[in-house]
């Protein structure tokens, strides 16, 4: 399902490299000179206390925020800053901390929007809803159905997402991102506000996406149990700075990390 046609990056090599990125809003420094990379095929976690700059970092990667300093290299191409449509067309998909779905639309339509960039027929055909436009719509519909099957949300295909419980909304949002067939999937707190069972489901989907489709994943998560189980490598931010970077075990035993979480005076 996930083809990743133009991905010249081999598994294990660097897919994304963030170098020396600094971001400030007026006088507030959200990120201070952070460098890290994401290797193709891995699950990379970004953790840290509230306000550490985790979501800001995701926003820099997919182009919502433009850092004052630093470079972002994705698939070998370096940029000073990303733009949302470039990020999307290059294969970066994301979900949001506070579910950002199209509330009035059905589950199916929400996931269909993930196919936007894959649809190529011109406006002319769309005016008549005929010919190539119809064929294309059906092909994409087929793909979306497979995403729906994968996430086990067949029963809510036609339901307006505004009516769904929170856990399912999160799942639909993941579906929309998956429909983009991304090379890099950014998940901002995919399990926030979920109960244990929902968390287990979501963890399973994250692992399956990674192993079945080879999708590289960078995720922000507060549940340490989940983070340590899922991820290959963990980046720890605190006050906008990188304080640790390594395997879950390394990070767990790092004194700076323990201090940051326990709130030791600096």
């Amino acid at each position: 399902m996930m083809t990743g046609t133009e991905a010249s990056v081999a598994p294990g090599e660097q897919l994304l490299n963030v170098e020396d990125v600094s971001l400030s809003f007026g006088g507030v420094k959200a990120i201070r000179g952070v460098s890290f990379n994401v290797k193709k095929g891995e699950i990379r976690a970004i953790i840290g206390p509230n306000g550490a700059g985790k979501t800001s970092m995701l926003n820099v990667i997919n182009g919502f925020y433009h850092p004052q300093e630093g470079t972002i290299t994705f698939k070998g191409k370096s940029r000073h800053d990303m733009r949302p449509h470039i990020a999307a067309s290059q294969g970066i998909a994301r979900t949001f901390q506070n579910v950002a779905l199209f509330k009035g639309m059905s589950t199916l339509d929400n996931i269909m929007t993930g196919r936007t960039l894959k649809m190529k027929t011109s406006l002319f055909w769309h005016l008549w809803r005929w010919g190539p436009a119809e064929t294309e719509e059906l092909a994409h519909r087929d793909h979306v159905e497979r995403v729906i099957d994968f996430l086990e949300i067949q029963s809510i295909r036609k339901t307006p997402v505004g009516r769904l419980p929170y856990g399912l909304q999160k799942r639909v949002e993941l579906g929309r991102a998956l429909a983009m067939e991304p090379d890099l999937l950014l998940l901002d707190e995919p399990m926030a506000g979920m109960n244990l069972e929902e968390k287990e489901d979501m963890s399973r989907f994250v692992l399956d996406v990674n192993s079945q489709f080879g999708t590289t994943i960078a995720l922000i998560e507060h549940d340490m149990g989940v983070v340590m189980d899922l991820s290959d490598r963990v980046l720890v931010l605190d006050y906008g700075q990188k304080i640790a970077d390594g395997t879950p075990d390394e990070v767990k035993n790092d004194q700076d990390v323990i201090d940051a979480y326990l709130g030791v005076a600096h």
Partner: protein
Amino acid sequence: MGGILYGVFVDPFIQMGSAPDLLLQVLWEGFVSGTLYALIALGFVLIFKASGVFNFAQGIMVVFGALSLVGLFAIGVPAFLALFLCLIIMGVLAFTVERAVLRPLVNQEPIILFMATIGLNYFLIGLGELVFGGEPKTMITSELGLPTGSWDFDVFGGLVIIQQLDVAAAVIACILVGGLAVFFNKTRIGRALRAVADDHQAALSVGISLNQIWVIVWFASGIVALATGIMWGAKSDVSFALSIVALKALPVLILGGFTSIPGAIVGGLIIGFSEKLAEFYWGPLVGGSIESWFPYFLALIFLWFRPQGLFGEKLIERV
């Protein structure tokens, strides 16, 4: 007192019953106005959905479209070529507005964008007067192949006169309204439009281009404005006063809801029917001419009961 109550609650209905041919005539005229109001309201709804902006300049776009058409014809361009060129002009306008007005103001408060459309409104008035002059002009009705005659029908022992131009206006308005409704509900572009209306950031994250959507909706509104300008211009004349007609969309939107395409259609018809009925049957009580303000009055009353409109999304906020 009794006389007033009789005049308000009894007499109009007796008149309706005693002269059904007149009632039919009034209803027909209400229907024609209603379809045109629905068309204008649709122009507002599209832009409001995509960008959250109430486009104050919609009215002047109606005038501008009609003036361009008449102006091009006056300098010797054949009618249908002029119509085609006007479509291009509306496209250029949409593109320019996106580049010069919307893009620099992205992420600003809706009120700022609203102010910008007021600015656009006066800019277009000035530009229109500069290029075409301020005096009223006559729409090139027959040159465009629009019928000008009328049909007389004998019904209920009376006479109902139906202007062929009105029939054409209603048919064209229905086709445009239906076409736009289908386009924005069933196609990829429509899905993208609804996505943008719901959540800008999420739309950006899946690669939907806000700029492209804005150009498309402004162009669609431009086409609607041009069609309205032609029809309304043919019924009266082509002057800057036409932009007042476009503001009739305001009560339509209050009735139908600012974000609903079916709402614009139903709201337009309700306003069309009710203003004609009110003018004809209740107008004489207060000396006539209530057509111009009655829709606003109706909308105000309606606001008491359904502030979100007939089809608008109900806003429930947790405190």
